[in-house]
């Protein structure tokens, strides 16, 4: 039950993008088309899940075991950077089109604060190994959900008559704000 709550909490109630405002850069940058948005979401989910597992191991068996908690940031960033490199090679091998569509945002997953945020949250909340992985999957799916919803709205928006001063980034930010407001509605779902 605890695990299920962590999952729901990460996807909806404490959605990384729309409640914690982490990972806004790809949220704005890659939410133009549903296809690339979902691919980006799954790439991030993959990195989140793997990094949740590895950072938990590092935290438990290196940082806590040797009592060097101040190395948290350094070690987590190393892991994330390596994972992103790995994902980049993988996607490039699997689909050149997808690789081109994601463009610069793929290596930028390294600096996606949602991923470092997840690693730090996991350490802070003292989750168990399974809980931490579920937390990672949940956060990733929440991120994907936010991106896909945003992309869906933006695809419709291409057909709408947006006033000139609001076109482009401006209307995107307004929509992001409205979406965040809407996600506030989930706040009562779980009493944390």
């Amino acid at each position, binding site marked *: 039950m605890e695990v299920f709550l962590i999952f729901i909490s990460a996807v909806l109630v404490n959605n990384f993008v729309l409640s914690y405002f982490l990972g806004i850069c790809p949220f704005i940058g890659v939410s133009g088309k549903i296809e690339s948005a979902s691919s980006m979401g799954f790439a991030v989910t993959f990195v989140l899940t793997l990094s949740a597992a590895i950072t938990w191991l*590092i935290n438990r068996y290196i940082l806590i075991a040797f009592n*060097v908690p101040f190395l948290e940031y350094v*070690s987590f960033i190393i892991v994330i950077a390596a994972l992103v490199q*790995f994902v980049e*090679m*993988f996607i*490039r091998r699997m689909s050149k089109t997808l690789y081109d569509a994601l463009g610069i945002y793929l290596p930028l997953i390294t600096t996606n604060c949602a991923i470092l945020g997840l690693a730090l949250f996991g350490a802070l909340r003292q989750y168990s190994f399974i809980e931490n992985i579920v937390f990672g999957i949940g956060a990733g799916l929440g991120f994907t959900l936010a991106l896909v919803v945003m992309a869906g709205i933006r695809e419709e928006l291409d057909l709408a008559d947006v006033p000139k001063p609001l076109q482009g980034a401006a209307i995107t930010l307004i929509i992001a704000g409205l979406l965040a407001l809407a996600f506030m509605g989930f706040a009562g779902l779980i009493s944390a």
Partner: protein
Amino acid sequence: MGITVLFISIVSMGGVGLVLAIILAIADKKLAVEEDPRVTKALELLPGANCGACGFAGCNAYANALVEGKVSISACKPGGNEVSRKLAELLGVEEAEEMSPKVARVFCSGGLAEAVRSRVYTGVETCAAAHLIGGEKACVYSCIGYGDCVFACQFDAICMGENGLPEVDLERCTGCGECVKACPRHIIGLTGYEEVVHVYCSSHDKGAVVRKVCSAGCVACGLCEKDDETGAVTMKDGLSVVDHGVDKAPVLAAKRCPTKVIRISSPTPGYEDVFKKAKEKLEAAIAQEEAAKAAAKAAKKSKETE
């Protein structure tokens, strides 16, 4: 204690780094993508300015498209003929027809000395911002002078002159057209190397208005198109326009222009010969015409005396 912690830190982080590095090294070998080696070579040939003049998002994208054979090898304007020749060699395709190299020229003569400044602008110092409320100069077609074009130029070919007008270094200009896009008043244009005469004013105002706001503007007097049946120079919407396809008249127009906004331009570097020939051709045509007129006049005179 201190030394132990330091030791543990170095060993643990080094260990983590090493393990990840080994994994990545293996993955790099296993997941290697076969890339056409010509892409890297084509990329080396390109200027690497990522100006976007070819229509692709940077040199890398263009190099990829080139190798796939989807685009013309002469789309790179900064690289010019030299690059397109090398690309032809590399890709083994027919050499494209000679590109017409272009350079940017600023079609405004209203510098600080010539143009009347009727307002004081204290806002953000970019042309785009100043253009929204009109800038300092009274002429609404004038160069605003905050140098958006200077910043847009990737090749350091434009600098602001002492007179507050941008000056294009024709040696460095590659004709990529970024400054043309950056200018909110659209007074920068790309010109071909065979063009001899240009109108260095963009004002469509009536003569009286232009006289009030600038001493170096086109006053739409129409002297340039007078006696000109070839149609090389025409008045269009209060501004004279030179048709470069037509011989003869432009040089004459430059001589006639009272405010000297129609001027003989400096030649495009590397094409001085073509420019000189074009100019000589124009001048010869005019001399011929004038001689014919003088002869007709003399004939008339001698007829009258008879």
